[in-house]
């Protein structure tokens, strides 16, 4: 028997009613706190690089971001990041520190699948899509910019 549109809408209504209610405001507040704090640490690292290597505000962003990525990888290896992630939700995932976690954790987990598809493949489980759509955005934006503004 084919499910009609009304059936599907009814099912959707029931599904929504019974889905666990998410504490939306509390989640957002925790994400704000954790994401904000991670960026605060990142800013301290950036200012540290500026003073130490005498970098300008512009050139200090790259090493600071790299340091935050390395920090995320190491904390994941030590098994400490899971707690941050459970509490902070997207506040832990959105900073590059959490991005490093999304690379390390599955690679570590799937080591038994071997060095090619296990570690090599799973390392890019999230990084692959992020790189793909990031680069596509850059190519599209570059093309638009070239057509509109580039001097000829």
């Amino acid at each position, binding site marked *: 028997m084919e499910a009609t549109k009304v059936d599907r809408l009814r099912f959707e209504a029931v599904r929504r009613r019974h889905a666990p209610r998410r504490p939306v405001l509390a989640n*957002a507040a925790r994400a*704000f706190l954790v994401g904000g704090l991670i*960026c605060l640490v990142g800013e301290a690292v950036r200012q540290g690089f500026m003073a130490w290597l005498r970098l300008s505000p512009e050139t200090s*962003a790259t090493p600071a971001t790299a340091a935050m990525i390395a920090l995320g990888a190491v904390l994941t290896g030590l098994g400490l990041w899971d707690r941050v992630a459970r509490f902070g939700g997207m506040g832990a995932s959105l900073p590059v520190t959490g991005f490093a976690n999304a690379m390390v954790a599955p690679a570590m987990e799937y080591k038994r699948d071997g060095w090619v598809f296990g570690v090599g493949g799973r390392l890019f489980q999230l990084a692959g899509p*992020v790189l793909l759509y*990031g680069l596509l955005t*850059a190519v599209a934006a*570059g093309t638009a910019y*070239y057509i509109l503004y580039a001097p000829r």
Partner: protein
Amino acid sequence: MTFLWAFLVGGALSALAQLVVDVARLTPAQTLVGFVVLGGVASLLGLYTPLVRLAGAGATVPLTGFGHVLVQGTIADIARNGWLGIFSGGLEAAAVGVTVAIAFSYLVALLAQPKA
């Protein structure tokens, strides 16, 4: 002052991402990819560079900053090399971040054992 703005902007972007997950019901992975694209578009429109100047790491540490770096690198390289820059600028600008992420992630995955 930058510290306060770093906290506020980084926190606000994170809270926004959490709302996208909880209210719009996108998966975290979809949200992260969306934010990279969003950062790139905001950068093209000239909105992201002022945010970086204001908030420092508050704007560069969230993944939106990755989209921004890719797009600004592309635009800068178009100015230097013409249309080839469309294809070279993004990865050039993001080279350090991408390489550190890959190398460190591999090293840690190699050395660390997952908890049972």
